[in-house]
């Protein structure tokens, strides 16, 4: 028989017990999805930025901006009235938006773009027959969605947006200081200045320039995110207006300017060779045959099922700072032969490394994995730059310069890296020794040279030039990013050392431009 017990005390203790269990874990689960940045008060307004050297445009007057009406005109006065009534009825959402955009549109748009890249960084799933569908820009919402923003796609996107924004802001600065129209809060003292006041003239509005450039180019590059892009652009323009920084005509002029410059950059992008970068099955076969003819083991895809190589002709995409001849000249010297003793030694090193990782090394692998669903390695370098830009309190045009220089170098390093990868078509460690198992996703393209190493050395090179106080940190990050690929079991040591050297050489092209661009 089961004895009857006195249940009441136990019932009470049970209740206490569950009360404790349920209350003890009510910790906050809020995780940051946007960077907390201070409001930007530029240390220097860079009044001469209109004369800084252009990259794609011939000069600031390639885009014309008509003179604004006088501040005493009735039309302008009615614009001021619009701002005043808006300020009198600010919603909480508008206040939040003003705070958000007051830390600088250049930083915010880069942050937004990293999210768009991560969202689209998904390789297509295979078809039932083992083939793979190709995302279609003419039908971006179909499955697989367009684009697959892998590292080459992403770095080209980052660089086009960054360059367009930089060119457009130089044009804007030219006209700002040509026309010298003050901001609404300076014209009319009854308009509050809800963002830090500066002496940057407000016509055309830099916020509008940024929102237009980003809207045009991001919509081209990430068409499925069009609604979010438009919403952000509208929010930025409204924040500029409601903060007393820009009038409707300042904004309209900025939008027109931004659209015009974005169209110039979009036209360049349309013919930069990216459309053909995927190659054809004949080209893929020729790459393998070429390696075989040289007596080397050709790379094969280890995806299941095997996937066509990622953008094999990206090495022919137009670079920003290098000519096609420069790209060939900067091609890395050949890797160790796949039949050489050195390659055996390097393969053995990968195997012993990946099988004997310390926890710290594993953390490095994951920190730098930057694989599927991430902003990719170039986006990681943009994120590294963000706090330096913010801490420097740069004017918007100078912040845009940082991202333009950085992303041009990253892009050109990507082009040179892809040129080298597909010129040699060298197998991954796990292909030469199937016993090698990787600690991170295996990229679906040839091994030599390491993309992480190339990107990171170029990024660290340019950032070290722009922020010398951070040079030690940037270079340590580049070394770490590069070595993470050996720890992960996906690269040989020579991929890394040669990739780092190549990345630095490519970065130097951008630095040579920066030294003579009139911004120093």
């Amino acid at each position, binding site marked *: 028989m089961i004895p009857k017990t006195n249940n009441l005390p136990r019932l009470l203790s049970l209740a206490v017990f569950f009360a404790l269990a349920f209350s003890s874990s009510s910790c906050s689960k809020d995780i940051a999805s946007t960077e907390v940045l201070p409001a930007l008060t530029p240390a220097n307004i860079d009044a001469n930025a209109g004369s800084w050297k252009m990259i794609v445009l011939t000069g600031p007057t390639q885009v014309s901006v008509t003179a604004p009406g006088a501040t005493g005109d009735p039309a302008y006065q009615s614009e001021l009235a619009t701002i005043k009534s808006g300020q009198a009825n600010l919603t909480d959402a508008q206040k939040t938006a003003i705070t958000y955009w007051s830390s600088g549109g250049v930083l915010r748009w880069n942050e937004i773009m990293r999210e768009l890249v991560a969202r689209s960084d998904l390789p297509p799933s295979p078809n039932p027959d083992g083939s793979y569908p190709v995302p279609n820009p003419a039908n971006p919402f179909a499955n697989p969605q367009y684009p697959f923003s892998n590292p080459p796609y992403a770095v080209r996107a980052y660089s086009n947006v960054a360059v367009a924004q930089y060119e457009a802001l130089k044009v804007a600065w030219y006209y700002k200081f040509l026309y010298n129209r003050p901001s609404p809060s300076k014209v009319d003292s009854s308009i509050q200045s809800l963002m830090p006041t500066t002496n940057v003239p407000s016509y055309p509005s830099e916020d509008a320039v940024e929102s237009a450039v980003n809207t045009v180019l991001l919509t081209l590059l990430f068409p499925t995110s069009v609604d979010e892009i438009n919403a952000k652009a509208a929010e930025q323009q409204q924040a500029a207006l409601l903060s007393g920084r820009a009038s409707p005509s300042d904004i309209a002029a900025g939008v027109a300017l931004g659209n015009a410059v974005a169209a110039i950059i979009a036209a360049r992008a349309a013919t930069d060779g990216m459309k053909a970068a995927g190659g054809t099955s004949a080209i893929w076969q020729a790459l393998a045959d070429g390696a075989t003819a040289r007596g080397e083991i050709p790379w094969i895809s280890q995806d299941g099922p095997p996937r066509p190589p990622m953008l094999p002709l990206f090495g022919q995409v137009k670079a920003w700072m290098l000519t096609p001849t420069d790209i060939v000249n900067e091609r890395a010297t050949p890797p160790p032969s796949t039949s050489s003793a050195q390659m055996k030694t390097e393969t053995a090193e990968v195997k012993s490394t990946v099988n004997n990782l310390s926890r710290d090394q594993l953390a490095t692998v994951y920190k730098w994995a930057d694989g599927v*669903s991430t902003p990719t390695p170039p986006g990681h370098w943009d994120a590294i730059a963000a706090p330096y830009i913010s801490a420097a309190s740069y004017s918007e045009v100078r912040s845009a310069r940082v991202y333009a220089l950085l992303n041009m170098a990253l892009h050109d390093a990507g082009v040179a890296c892809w040129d080298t990868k597909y010129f040699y078509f060298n197998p991954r460690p796990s292909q030469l020794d199937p016993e090698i198992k990787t600690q991170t996703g295996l990229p679906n393209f040839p091994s030599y040279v390491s993309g992480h190493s190339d990107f990171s050395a170029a990024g660290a090179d340019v950032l070290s030039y722009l922020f010398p106080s951070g040079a030690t940190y940037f270079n340590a990050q580049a070394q770490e990013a590069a070595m993470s690929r050996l720890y992960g079991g996906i690269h040989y040591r020579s991929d890394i050392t040669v990739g780092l050297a190549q990345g630095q050489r490519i970065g130097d092209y951008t630095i040579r431009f920066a030294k003579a661009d009139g911004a120093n």
Partner: protein
Amino acid sequence: MISLVSRSRHKLHRKILASICFALLLPLCPSLHAQTIDDGIMLANKTLCAGALYSHDSWDHYWEGSLERVNGNIGTVTTQSLTMAANYGITNWLDAIINVPYVWTNASQGVLHGQAGFQDLALAVKFKAISLPVGHHGALRAIGVLYGTIPMTNYTPDLQPLSLGANSKTISGRATLNYLGQRGLYINGTAAYTFRGNVTLDRPFYYTNGQLFLSNEVAMPNQFNFGTSVGYRKNNLEIVGNYSQQQTRGGGDIRPQDAPFVSNRVNFSKAGATLKVPVPKLKNLQYWFLYSNTFQGRNVGQANTITTGLMYTFSFEKRATP
């Protein structure tokens, strides 16, 4: 269309199995280490039940969100574990339970490296709040369990599905209602709510559930699970059928062709059976065999799980009283 996916060869088969399970109120063990945590059995005063359990869990089909598919980059994922388990009867109405699992994982295809190591230490106190005789036929018990897990090593949660676990501290409250008849009829119903602590990744940002998070910290959605078991239990012999469900209260789906993420919304229904038999001639030694099949789910593998081992019961009370 994402369509590597071999859709539901066994769907009908599973539906039938599921219906049978529901119909019989078959039981199931919600997790590998939940033995004795979710059942209605209490140990006698100053009794220790301890032993080792080996578990083998494998799947090749899985649900990417709600899409059923296979994946050539992993093939069949196998998770094995060896758990040292002990359950001590502090009094007739209070048990303390500890589980120490060592886990190793493997993928049959692709190049990903399996992981191995000690996973999460589980500690529980289980107590009988109510015990009511039901006529002369048996007894009804209400049991509460406070259960917590804590990772024993700093294993990575960022190589799903090959990570050893989620590397999250958890605490859960469980309530169990159990009927045990004089002739061996065993009916058990149990439900638990689990709070899961934030997880720290080794990277500074991650994308999940439609958003890029600029942090290495991941919020882990809480989980609710329940299960029922029906069978026979008498004279150290137990034959029980199990059914259980888990619902995760948030989290995103696995992204197309992406790896699972630690905070994904993992839901499943499982059915299976438990067999515990005394080992002949070895008094107090019991052989355990458990099987379960995940027949429905979201962001989870269609796993077949087998757990087997030996558990020995020591009674300190008896020794103390010759």
